[in-house]
């Protein structure tokens, strides 16, 4: 798995949606809704994450003629990617967290 993935805001949104339910099967439309990204942004991210080994992609096991619709593709974080994704999101959260007022005041007077 390639851990050197660049964590942009859209990528972080997708990862956050996947980490929220790591054992669930996620499909494109659901990820669009949970990440707030349009299809044109989401699918390149999913493809990049899949190629980097962060995601497993599998096809829904249905008979399209019986179901009356084509089979969907499902995405899930790989077991190796889940702790890395959690750590990277936590780091991002830490970096973007507003400084505590006391800390900010101390830094300002230092």
């Amino acid at each position: 798995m390639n851990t050197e993935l660049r964590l942009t805001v859209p990528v972080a949104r997708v990862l956050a949606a996947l980490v929220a339910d790591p054992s669930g099967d996620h499909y494109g439309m659901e990820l669009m809704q949970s990440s707030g990204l349009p299809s044109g942004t989401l699918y390149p991210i999913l493809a990049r994450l899949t190629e980097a080994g962060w995601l497993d992609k599998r096809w829904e096991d249905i008979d399209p003629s019986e179901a009356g619709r084509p089979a969907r593709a499902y995405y899930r974080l790989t077991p190796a990617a889940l702790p890395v994704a959690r750590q990277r999101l936590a780091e991002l959260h830490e970096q973007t967290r507003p400084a505590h007022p006391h800390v900010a005041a101390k830094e300002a007077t230092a």
Partner: protein
Amino acid sequence: MISRLCHTLLARAARRWPVDLRAAMLAEWQAELHVLPTTAQRLRYAASLATSRPHREGAVLISPQRAVAHGLLWLALITVLPTVYLPLALNWTSGMDPGTVVWQTWVAGGSVVAAAVLGAVCGSLTTGVTRVIEPMSVARWTVGVGYVTVVAYYLVGGGLDGAMLTDMTYWALSAVALCTLAAKVAGAGWRLLSWVIVVIAVPVTFWFAHLHSALSDFSALGMEYFFGGEYLPAFLFAVGKQELLHVIIFLFVYAHVLVLRHRAAPVAEASQEVAA
């Protein structure tokens, strides 16, 4: 009707993806499109995919013969088109009076647009050039050949003197610097910024090309009788009708489209080349 449009948009989007992923992505998108409840959602879904770029460009195999043919066509276009256009344009740019200035303004504006469109079309027709010339060197070669062509044209016409040669040399050097910068910026993924640099390069290099010409002494052009004596429209007209400006726009757009349309060779082919 809408359904057909959506499927057309998805098919168009899929064509931009790498060949190895194309079929799977299209099947996935069609499955999602199928379950979207409203027409607006379906259209938005398909349009977003059709107007976005994939995470990586698909590798493209261009035969060596085709690449050489594209290279020769590129050479012919950047030498023949300016050589034919420069004398032809003199028919409508050389003289003017209050009766002709209106249609000359339209023709000047149209020529600027036509030069850009022609450059884009030529770039998309000769994409194999970047297999013969490195993408980062395309600007250097395009401007270099354009420089030799224009200088040769003025030399044969008897209009080349030391001042013009100096101006054209400054033009070529500034053009190479700015267009190569645009290519590097595009290579870093900033396509829009790269186009901004190309757009800026046009007036900057055009200014270098006219350091010793009448355009640098605008009051000597006799434009005070036109456009109600207003400076800006008269100056824009005087610049816009310059045939060299149209040639510059054509060359810059052509070179930059070639850079942007460059696609990597397939891995197998690349490794064979390395092994060879």
